[in-house]
């Protein structure tokens, strides 16, 4: 399963080399051209059958949230800062892999035996946490993990029956969907796939990728928040596991093109593919950068619901994953220039 390789690859924003290598290997033989742009995004081109003169961009970001080494104390512990949105509540006691050599590390935590009551009630600040890689001096630590070294969670991919768990499903789930789409038959239009960098720190890779591609429309593929855990009030789950791909109508970064939303929901209804509308107003994706490129790009985001994203381990349903691939493939096969014609409104 390509999702396993992608999930286990190392790829904190700005250091996506490992994921890039997995992506290049996975898509090379299925596309007509592939290159790496100046920021480091993988741009793969798959020619269409020539029936629709159209450039369609499919985007998924390769980078994941993580940590960066920013200093040392005299006993050889590493100081860290977050890269992207990391919740410090989740960090104490987690297992890390530090740097390209994947040096094992642990985020230090005081044993419960020694914990004072007040300490136990507070969430530690990131500035107060240290990573223990077993070194005993500042010099030794510096040598193994020079300043600026990245770290990510050391989480293995696991299959749990109908669901799978692993790290970085945001957005390796989207990358895996995109790989599956590239491996299939040609579409009628020219397909420009962008596996982008630095989404988690500000949609940076997608912005320049879209500028270069100049697409007629764009689809961002994501792994998004599922918060279908029990609540004390009848209010919205952002998305729910098992209810199919989540289509974004509006989030903090953009408002989806209604014609593309209709294409997706119409296709889903026609074929009986389960789908859901993501709770509007939450989060942001590469579509936020893509839709404002040049003269504007009609865009939409389609996501695989994932529980516990931005944490050491997330969980997704393989049914949702497969339905996302199917919904995208079927919708894209129905996408024509007419889909984007405005007519007389």
């Amino acid at each position: 399963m390509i999702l396993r390789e992608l999930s286990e690859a190392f790829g904190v924003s700005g250091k996506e080399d490992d994921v890039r290598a997995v992506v290049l290997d996975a898509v090379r033989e299925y596309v007509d051209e592939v290159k790496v742009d100046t920021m480091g995004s993988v741009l793969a081109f798959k020619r269409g059958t020539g029936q629709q003169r159209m450039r369609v961009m499919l985007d998924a970001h390769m980078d994941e949230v993580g940590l960066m080494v920013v200093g040392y104390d005299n006993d050889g512990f590493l100081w860290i800062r977050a890269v992207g949105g990391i919740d410090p509540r989740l960090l104490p006691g987690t297992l890390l892999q530090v740097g390209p050599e994947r040096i094992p590390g642990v985020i230090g935590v005081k044993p419960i035996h020694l914990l004072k009551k007040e300490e136990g009630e507070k969430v530690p600040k990131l500035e107060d946490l240290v990573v223990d890689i077993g070194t005993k001096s500042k010099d030794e630590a510096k040598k193994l993990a020079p300043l600026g070294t990245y770290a990510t969670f050391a989480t293995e991919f696991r299959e749990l029956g109908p669901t799978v768990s692993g790290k970085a499903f945001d957005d390796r789930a989207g990358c895996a969907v995109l790989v599956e789409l590239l491996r299939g038959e040609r579409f009628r239009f020219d397909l420009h796939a962008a596996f982008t960098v630095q989404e988690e720190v500000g949609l940076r890779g997608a912005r320049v990728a879209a500028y270069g591609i100049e697409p007629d429309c764009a689809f961002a593929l994501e792994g998004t928040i599922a918060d279908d855990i029990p609540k004390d009030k009848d209010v919205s789950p952002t998305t729910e596991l098992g209810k199919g791909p989540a289509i974004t109508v509006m989030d903090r970064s953009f408002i989806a093109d209604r014609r593309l939303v209709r294409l997706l929901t119409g296709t889903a209804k026609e074929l009986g593919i389960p789908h859901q509308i993501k709770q509007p107003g939450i989060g942001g994706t590469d579509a936020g950068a893509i839709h404002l490129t040049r003269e504007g790009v009609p865009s939409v985001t389609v996501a695989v619901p994932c529980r516990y994203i931005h944490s050491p381990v997330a969980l997704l349903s393989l049914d949702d994953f497969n339905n996302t691939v199917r919904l995208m493939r079927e919708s894209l096969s129905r996408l024509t220039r007419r889909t984007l014609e405005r007519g007389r409104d």
Partner: protein
Amino acid sequence: MRELIRKLVETYGPSGAEEQIRAVIRAEVEPLADELRVDPLGSLIVHKQGGDEGKRIVLAAHMDEIGVMVTYVDEKGFARFTRIGGVNPLTCVGARVAFADGTVGVIGIEEKRDDTSKAPKFEQLYIDTGATSRDECPVHVGDAATFVRPFVAQGTRLIAKALDDRIGCAVLIETLRRLERTPHDVYFVFSVQEEVGLRGARTSAYGIEPDLAIAVDVTRTGDTPECAPMAVALGKGPAVKVQDRGMIAHPAVRDLLVQRAKEANIPYQLEVLERGTTDAAAMQLVRAGVPSGCLSIPCRYIHSPSEMVDEGDVRNSVQLLLEVLRTA
């Protein structure tokens, strides 16, 4: 202009769903255009051709308005919502909203709140369409609605929802109607998605590559009881923007507006706005940069369902734009 303004403010058009308002504006401007197109994000661009000696000028007013979007429908058929643009929860309570198909909902507020003296949070508000169950509810997650309020003209004041910025649209349409000859290539841009981040103006300006851009939008005033100080008042003429939170007006554009107002004896005010910004802020930074400014129509109660402008300010705005376009 009153009938035009009534039609514009009473038409549905939240950010991202401008189809209906675009069709209304299109019907008004199409006979007057040398060329007309809708760009990829949905902004309506009307081109009025000029001579060779003039500039390529953009006049932009946004056609979208603030609104709400359904985020969830509960078991009993009540819809929870989020805002589209800068909606104030205080003006939501008791308000009516209408969806694209005309369905009307009433905004209710949870009575069990920790502190009822505080402004409610959006999580404490809901839309009641009269439905009694989720299945029966006529509105769905992702559906957008705008506030409902009829247009009123009383004395010289005009009162309506969405004067921000349908009054700017009205000024543009009237200017286009009365524009006889101009040395400039003028692009009247009715932009989308201003209220959620100046998005349509940015992409349409990229496409047009103007030499000069002027946004026409509303601005706040400092003439109501116990309000924040601001040297702009209703009825004292259009306001020439000096700066706001997103932009410092290009001095040449600011001076051009001031000079033409003086020459034609049109009353005007200078404006420094401490909250908010306009499409001009986005247009200014497109490509290699565009000298940009803003002509503002003073407006009370912005982003409430009852905004108020002065009809004289509106007419003088049209007059001033005509003066700007008349000569090189």
